[in-house]
């Protein structure tokens, strides 16, 4: 009992009440009663000892807090007494809450979180034209010259006009570069971890062809520069120019584009002069800081008053008359930039919202299991609770105590969940990164994440604990006492079954979603691309600054020498020139003119242009279906011949051969010499567009096909061959398959996560089915024993028990199917090649669930079938 009276106040209270009893007893003895009877009478007169003590406690300073502390101690003791239950409960809650917190923190970081800059709420982005978020450099210069519009403006871009690579040990390390104006740091209020940020002097120096100052990211400093202390002031060599490092950005600033990591920040004036002067290239994001109290509307109208002058001064002369008019007329506008801009956000907001719904369902399924466990526990504690009620404990008091137990479980679960979340959210973000684009998101354990986890824990407590607590205390004390701790009457049975049916229904929804998304991924992954990326290696060639390359002709000759060397390298089947990053990378599309005799709508004449070379189709595993491949003869007149894909041939020349025909776009015209099979060059989801392959001159990129089909196996041989042909050149290689896979990252991630959710849901639901079946069998042992004694056969008993499992599954699956019909509409935007109501998938989900629930009922059913009537009847008598 010692622990029930843990502190002095409690001891005093007990002594005080005991003293009263003694006083009463002594008086009764004095009146002539014998001591035993006097003691009895005294106790009867006193009434409920615990209830009085309880009422006294409530009168003291912080009754609520104090009794909470006591309840907590009781709860800890009870949980330690049943470690199995505590373990299962805490593990499932920490996984459930952890997964929810993880997805939330990623979603929050990507969608809601403000940039880590000074007063992000006053930060806006200037949208120069509808549907165009970037300006030309001259427009930016004009906006900057209007000092009175805002509290400061700055320019930022990562639309790399040129690619910058770091030269280390004769290899080219690509670096993610951001370009900023000199006032970027001062307008945003950025701090450097070491050294300083870029300023206007750096912008000036770079503009005048002087030294190029740069700020590097903390991550880049650690991963690429060995976290050296002497890095400030040091000069690093890039493929473009030497760069002087003047500072390291503070680690919490991850750039203006939420999600995309950066390595290097350069003054925007370090970009080639042509980019700074042209009025046709839209690549600069202009950010502004509103004046205190200035509204978006006020800033917009202020901007529009100066718009005509800016437009007139920056009008691109290349535009046709109607385009000029639009350029002068289109209104500038302003949007809040508190959360930055993000291409990642656009791609992942919906999938992540869907994943949040998925993990929430998962938590709900886990909660149902816990509720069932608590109900079962409440059953076994009926006797205890009955005794306490009989001793005068109030029902609310007991409910509170039971809820404290649930609260304790969910608090421990949530704390462990935060660890799970910290780890898994980073894992999730790392899965978003590709070979091509690295993803960085700030995932601090801040009040938002903590708040979410707390909320999840509290909700879980209520969802899990409330019903069992009320049911457990809905006991007639006498009935409970009469049972002497044997739980026979079970009101929890029906509720438990309902919960399990709900679990099955929710699992069905998750499984159906997983099935649809998984099949989408497989469809896209296995889609016939029309070419085979697996054996292909892409090679990027870069000359360091200062390497002599002579005129254009000798450069072409040098490149051809390299191509010949690669073609002769061991293990190489074929090779061809290809623009770096091609063919899965950037493309152009042009509107072509109507072929003679046809009037296609403009959208049907949107043709993709792709640069090719002799051997290009062979290398990619494409084949010429009509006509011929490019040959050496073509290479001398490359501007006039072209090869088209089947889609273009069919659309532009239906029912006839495209060979020898001419296609035009503006002043350009090509004669078709061959037709190749359709191939997907960008994204399997977008399918095949009409494509025209043209010959372009030698370029500093190659694609190489391995004879044995394994691209990595030839990498070393290719690099060696190139070094032998041209000792100056820097070589970067990549497997084309990696690039192809990068286009499916989102699909892969969504499919993986939803499958994981589906599997977890199955595990949880089968645990639920097992629990409720085992419970039923345990309860019906007596009945089963009697039935056996009366001659029921083993199969009959098995059928009897199994019927419940089958009914539960049928109800759950039907409810789940109905819910899926509604829920799957949200999945639709992510699907490819199948409908949300895909019958095969839904039937598959139903079948899997049926099998799993049957398997989960197996042990309880067998136990029922083995019931020995003699034992049972003896125990019951």
């Amino acid at each position, binding site marked *: 009992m010692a622990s029930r009276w843990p502190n002095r106040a409690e001891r005093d209270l007990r002594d005080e009440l005991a*003293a009263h009893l003694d006083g009463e007893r002594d008086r009764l003895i004095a009146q002539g009663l014998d001591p035993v009877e006097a003691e009895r009478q005294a106790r009867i007169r006193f009434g409920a000892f615990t209830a*009085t003590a309880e009422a006294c406690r409530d*009168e003291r300073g912080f009754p609520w807090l104090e009794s909470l502390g006591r309840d907590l101690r009781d709860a800890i003791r009870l949980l330690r007494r049943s470690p199995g239950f505590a373990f299962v409960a805490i593990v499932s809650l920490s996984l459930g809450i952890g997964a929810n917190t993880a997805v939330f923190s990623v979603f929050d970081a990507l969608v809601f979180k403000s940039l880590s800059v000074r007063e992000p709420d006053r930060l806006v982005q200037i949208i120069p034209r509808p549907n165009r978020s970037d300006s030309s450099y001259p427009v930016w210069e004009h906006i900057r010259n209007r000092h009175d519009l805002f509290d400061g403006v700055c320019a930022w871009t990562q639309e790399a006009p040129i690619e910058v690579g770091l030269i280390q040990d004769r290899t080219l390390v690509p670096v993610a570069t951001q370009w900023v104006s000199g006032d970027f740091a001062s307008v945003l209020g950025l701090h450097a971890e070491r050294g300083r940020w870029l300023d206007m002097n750096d912008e000036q120096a770079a503009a005048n062809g002087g030294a190029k100052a740069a700020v590097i990211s903390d991550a880049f400093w650690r991963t690429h520069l060995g976290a050296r202390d002497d890095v400030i002031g040091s000069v690093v060599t890039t493929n473009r120019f030497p760069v002087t490092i003047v500072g390291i950005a503070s680690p919490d600033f991850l750039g203006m584009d939420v999600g995309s990591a950066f390595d290097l920040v350069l003054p925007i004036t370090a970009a080639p002069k042509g980019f700074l002067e042209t009025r046709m290239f839209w690549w600069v994001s202009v950010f502004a800081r509103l004046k205190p109290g200035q509204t978006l509307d006020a800033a917009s109208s202020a901007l529009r008053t100066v718009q005509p002058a800016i437009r007139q001064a920056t009008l691109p002369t290349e535009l046709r008359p109607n385009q000029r008019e639009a350029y002068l007329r289109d209104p500038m506008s302003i949007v809040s930039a508190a959360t930055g801009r993000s291409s990642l956000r656009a791609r992942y907001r919906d999938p992540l919202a869907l994943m949040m719904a998925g993990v929430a369902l998962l938590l709900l399924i886990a909660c149902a299991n816990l509720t069932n466990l608590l109900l079962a526990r409440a059953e076994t504690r009926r006797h205890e609770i009955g005794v306490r009620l009989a001793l005068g404990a109030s029902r609310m008091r007991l409910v509170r105590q039971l809820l404290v137990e649930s609260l304790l479980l969910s608090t421990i679960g949530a704390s462990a969940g935060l660890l799970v979340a910290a780890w898994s959210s980073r894992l999730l973000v790392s899965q978003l990164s590709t070979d091509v684009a690295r993803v960085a998101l700030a995932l601090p354990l801040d009040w938002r994440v903590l708040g979410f986890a707390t909320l999840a824990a509290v909700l879980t407590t209520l969802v899990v604990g409330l019903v069992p607590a009320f049911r457990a205390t809905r006991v007639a004390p006498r009935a409970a006492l009469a049972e002497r701790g044997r739980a026979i009457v079970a009101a929890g049975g029906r509720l438990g079954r309902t919960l399990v049916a709900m679990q099955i229904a929710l699992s069905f929804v998750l499984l159906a979603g997983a099935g649809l998304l998984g099949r989408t991924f497989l469809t896209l992954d296995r889609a016939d691309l029309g070419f085979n990326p697996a054996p292909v290696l892409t090679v990027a060639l870069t000359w360091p600054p200062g390497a002599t390359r002579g005129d254009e002709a000798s450069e072409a000759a040098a490149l051809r020498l390299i191509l010949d060397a690669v073609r002769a390298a061991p293990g190489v089947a074929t090779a061809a020139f290809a623009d770096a990053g091609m063919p899965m990378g950037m493309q152009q599309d042009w509107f072509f003119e109507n072929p003679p005799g046809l009037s296609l709508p403009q959208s049907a004449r949107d043709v993709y242009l792709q640069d090719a070379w002799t051997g290009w189709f062979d290398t990619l595993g494409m084949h010429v279906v009509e006509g011929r491949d490019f040959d050496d003869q073509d290479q001398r007149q490359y501007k006039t011949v072209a090869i088209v894909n089947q889609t273009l041939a069919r659309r532009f020349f239906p029912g006839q051969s495209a060979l020898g025909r001419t296609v035009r776009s503006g002043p350009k015209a090509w004669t078709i010499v061959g037709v190749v099979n359709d191939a997907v060059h960008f994204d399997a989801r977008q399918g095949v567009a009409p494509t025209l392959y043209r010959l372009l001159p030698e370029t500093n990129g190659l694609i190489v096909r391995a004879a044995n089909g394994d691209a990595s196996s030839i990498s070393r041989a290719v690099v060696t061959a190139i070094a032998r042909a041209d000792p100056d050149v820097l070589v970067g290689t990549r497997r084309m398959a990696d690039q192809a896979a990068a286009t499916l990252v989102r699909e892969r991630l969504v499919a993986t996560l939803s499958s994981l959710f589906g599997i977890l849901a199955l595990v949880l639901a089968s645990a639920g089915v097992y629990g409720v079946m085992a419970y039923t069998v345990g309860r019906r042992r007596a009945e089963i024993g009697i039935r056996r004694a009366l001659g029921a056969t083993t199969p009959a008993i098995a059928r009897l028990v199994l019927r419940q499992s089958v009914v539960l599954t049928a109800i759950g699956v039907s409810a789940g199917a109905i819910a899926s019909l509604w829920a799957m509409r949200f999945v639709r935007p992510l699907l490819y090649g199948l409908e949300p109501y895909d019958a095969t998938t839904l039937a598959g989900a139903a079948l899997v669930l049926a099998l799993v629930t049957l398997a989960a009922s197996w042990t309880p059913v067998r136990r029922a079938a083995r019931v020995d009537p003699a034992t049972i009847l003896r125990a019951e008598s």
Partner: protein
Amino acid sequence: MPLSLPQGTLDLLILKALALEPLHGWAISDRLQQLSSDALQVGQGSLYPSLHRLERRGWLKAKWRTTDANRRAKYYELTAKGRARLADATEDWRKLTQVVSGVLDLT
């Protein structure tokens, strides 16, 4: 038949019982029973919570002493605040009973 006490009256009676000398809980209930010639029986379920409440409000203070029977007991005594409260409450009670009886005697 013991009388049941209107709300709040118990507090007043406790203060009155303690006006003479400090007492412990059982003695208070005993005293009240004596003073009322057994008409009042104060249940411990309300006596002790009341004592704790009055103590928290600063009208009573408690000390642990040894009783005549050599047993540890908690003695309550009136504070200055408690004495003032007793005076006020007694006055209120008189007025109230007067008014209430006046109304009842009208019929």
